[in-house]
Each structure stands twice: as C-alpha cells, then as structure tokens.
C-alpha cells in the first residue's frame, strides 16, 4: 500500500503551481483537474465537488 498521503498531494500541487509560474498555473490546475476527473470516472460526483467549490468561493473574499 502506498505510504503517500494527502499531505504529499498538497505539496505536489503547491510545487506544481510554483513551477508553472503565474502564466501557466491556471493551465496546470485545469489539466490536473481534468486528469483526476477522468480517473475518478464518476461525472455526478465530480460535478458535485466542482459545484461545492464554486459555491464556497464567494465567501472567500478578503474583507475590505
């Protein structure tokens, strides 16, 4: 069994964003999302996750 944890994924995404740089970080995340979605293979579940993230974005603005 893999000894890797969510912590490792967290770090890999962070480093990926850093490596991609500002110009390509969005593309990097979009590619990661699409690839993971395909691997999960459950469109309803993935859409529910995306919707959950979308609906929470509004509350995440820094107060003025």
């Amino acid at each position, binding site marked *: 069994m893999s000894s890797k944890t969510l912590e490792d994924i967290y770090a890999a995404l962070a480093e990926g964003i850093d490596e991609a740089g500002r110009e390509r970080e969005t593309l990097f995340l*979009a590619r990661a999302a699409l690839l993971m979605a*395909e691997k999960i293979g459950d469109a309803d579940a993935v859409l529910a996750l995306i919707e959950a993230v979308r609906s929470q974005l509004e509350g995440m603005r820094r107060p003025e």
Partner: protein
Amino acid sequence: MRPAGRGELESLYFNYPHFDAPAQREGLSARTPVAIAGAGPVGMMAALVLAQQGIKSVLIESKPTFNDGSRAICLARSSYHLFQTLGIERRFTDKGLPWVSGRTFFRGRQILEFFMADSDHDKYRPMYNLEQQYIEAYLYEAVAQSPLINMRWQSRLTGLRDLKDGAVLSIEDSKGAYELPADWLLAADGARSFIRTLRGHRLKGQNYEGRYVIADIRLERPCKVERFALFDPNTRPGGTVLIHQQPDNIWRIDYQLRDGESEEQALGEASIRASIKQVLQETGFDEPWELEWWSIYSANTLLMDDYRDGRIFFIGDSAHIVPIFGVRGLNNGLLDAQNIGWKLSLVLKGLASEKLLGSYTPERRGATLDVFENATKSARFMTPHSRGYAIMRDAALTLALDHAFAGEFANPRNMTPYTYAQSPLSRQDSGAFAGGPGPGAAALNARLKTGFLLDSFGHCFTVLHFGTLKDREAITRISGDVTFVEQAADGPAARRYDATDGTAYLIRPDQHVAARWRQATAPQIAAALANILQGGVQPS
C-alpha cells in the same frame, strides 16, 4: 470574393451557366399548388421531392446562375441516401470525394485521429466533399428534366399577400411584373430571408464571437481525403485552422480571425494570400497554388420559433442558421426539404389530413436544436468565447498528447441523423426490442446478398417485415402507395433490426421508422399508417 482582375463568377474550375428570365410570358400567373422561393440546394431539393410524388411546383430564383462560391462542401451520408431516393445519386458518387477520418494537431503535433461510423452495411461513406456549385448543378439537371417543376431564373419576389387558402406572390423580372397565386409557399430564400423579414419573424439565439475566413485554393497534391484541424498553430497562435480537400484539386482552408483583427483588413487579398501561405508552410504543403475564392462567416446558432406561418413553411437557412462545425447546415436543410415535401404531397393529393403538416416544425426544429447542442459543444472548443473555455480547451489539448480521452474533446461530432423520438408521428414501442432503429430513428441499411436493404424501400411508405405478413389488403386499403419489403427472419437485415419471425417496421417516405412491432399483424400496421395520415393525433 475573388482575386483582383477576376469577376465574381470567374472560377478556376467551374463554368457558370447563365439562365434568362422566362421567355414564355403566358401562364406565368397560373395558380400553382406549391411555390418555392429560392433555388439553392434546399429549394431545388424541395421541388424534386414534390415532383417525385407527382406534385407540380414553381421555383423562383433572383440570381441568373448558381452560387458564386463553393460555401457548403460536406455532404453527409444522409444526403446521399436522399439523392438515391430521387434517383440522382450517380453524379454525386462520381464527383464527390468520400472520407471517413480526420486528424487533429495541437501546436504542430498530432493529438487525435478520429473515424466516423462506417461499416460493411453502409452503402455510402459518412461524408463526401463536393463544391456547392456542383451540388446545385447536379440538382438543377434533375430540376430541368422534370416536367412538373417550372423553374424561373432572375425572378425576384417583391411582395406577398395572404389568401384564405394560399398566398399571392408578387414577382418581378427583367421583362415585367406579375402575380402568382399558390396554395402553399416554401421559403427557401436563405439566411437573409426576404419572406421571413416581410412576415415580421426573427431568428433568435446566439452569435458566437469566433469569425472564420474560408478560402479555396487550387493545389495539386494527390493524397488521402481526410479532414485536418490545427489548434493553436505556430502561424496563428491561439487560433484554429481547418483544411478539407475538394474535387478538381481545390482545397478549403478555414482559419479563425484573432480578437480585434479587423474583417476589412483580413479580407484584403494580400492578407488572405499571406495567411494561406503561412498555413501551407506549417502543414508541409509545398506545391504551387492559385487563389480561387474566399469569404467570411461567424459561428451562429439562430432559429425561428415556428417554421410555419399559415400557408408558408420555412426550410433551410431561412429557418435556422447553424455553425459549420459538424457540417449540418446544408445537410439539415436538405432534410427540411424532404420532410415538408412528402407531407405536403400527401395533403395535396388528398391522402392525408392537413394536420400532418403540424409535425413539420416539431420534427425539424427538434433536429435544429439537436444540431445546436452538438455544434455548441464543438464551437466552444473550436472558438472558446471566454478565458475559462480557452483554458480548459488548452488543458484538454495539451493532455491529449499523452491521454487519449482528452483528444475526444476535439472530435468534430459530425452530422448523424436525428431521431424524431417525440414526434406525434412516432408510435412509442412497448420496449420489446433490444436493438434496431427505434421509433423516429433513421432506418438502418444492411448489406444483402445483392445490393442493400434501403435500395428496396419505396418512394412513399414501406412495410419492412420479417417472414410472411398476412392480410396485406388491410394496409393497402388505407393507402395504395405502400411498398412491402420481405426479409428472412434469420438474414443480415434481421440482425440489424433485432427482428424475429413476425417482426415488422413501418417506414416513412423519408426512411425514418414510424412504428415497429415484435409480432405484427396487418391491422395493427394499417392503424398506425392511418394515424400518421391523420397527423398522428391519436395515440395508437
């Protein structure tokens, strides 16, 4: 548009005929059962379908000849079947270039090769490339030969008024003006339909921002016929380029304009030549070439709320404008013409209730909406209209280099026949079938010992039955124009239709399935046929 020094009709490969306004002035105002405005492919197809059913029509066209450029170049398998039902397929098979596959490139690397559905049971290939002038010329050959079609060139519709049971067209040509009364009017007068404007109707929907230049060049390069799509090519960063081969060594190159690139600038001859040169260089085409013709289009999804206004039916681009992705504009326009053609014929012959015509809008508008759904997916991939769609498109394309699933986003979702599942003419089946074409679906072809199954279907209704069918008179009493096609219950057609001994399909004149029964009796089939002729109002 054409290069400097060449007239609008000076083509490198096509000799435009010139047609005069009617010389014989007597009888121009004689009432006609059907008037058709616009002799493009859709208008001519409508006249041919009506003529095949024995119905006279007057076809008017304001121009003196065929379309000035090649415009629509892809004919789908469904259109070839339609040509076959009219007995005019030979010209199209001789000239059209068949193709089954295409390749997609992203930044110069091939990321996808797609194949359209094609099997040993198909008589025609999924797609053929043929310049629109040839399509029109071949249809016109048949129009000119038909004693039932009265074709009037250089005849302009200037006005229209309603009759209780028809419409009166005001027509002008170089020799004068006259009125033409008609029982029915088919508006095949194109995207900028005069009739639609006159009647105060509007096309509704969306304009996409993507604008494409379409250009034809002559270049001799013998190679396999396939479609090339280039995403984000080095020559047009961020843009998309499509390449199709046509007969007579003509190549269609479509390329997307950049945001902010002015149309006026892009459509200048120097700019067209420079862009084509770059595309050819990137594609590795190093043969000499000549510029033939070019134009521009944008990817729109627009349609009318109702394709009928009293005694007027809108067919083709006058009723709906679709993006080219998926090649559905011309092919669906031809199917509009066929759909209203057989229905109107049965009504005019007194064999069907006028209620049958009520199924035209739901069936063909449904087909248009289905086109929109597919074309919208293609369009938002080909010409992303927002940053979000552009990023996801790039994500998919870059993944496609190593992950096959991501390449499928670039599949062009080409034209496939629409199923009239919700049509009042489709009899819902009991679910006894595990396969075969369902109610409303296009009939499937099957390779038989000699020829193909669809070759044996009739011009009007067809009863396809597996094993013997008793008491056929029950059916012929309802309509004399029924063709019976018997197939063995253990033959190749039976497998395609999930049929056993006693199974039957009732096929409409447009070769769509109206109804089917696992175990059929002639009275059941007769009742379903009678229901269609009454407009499909009663559930059966």
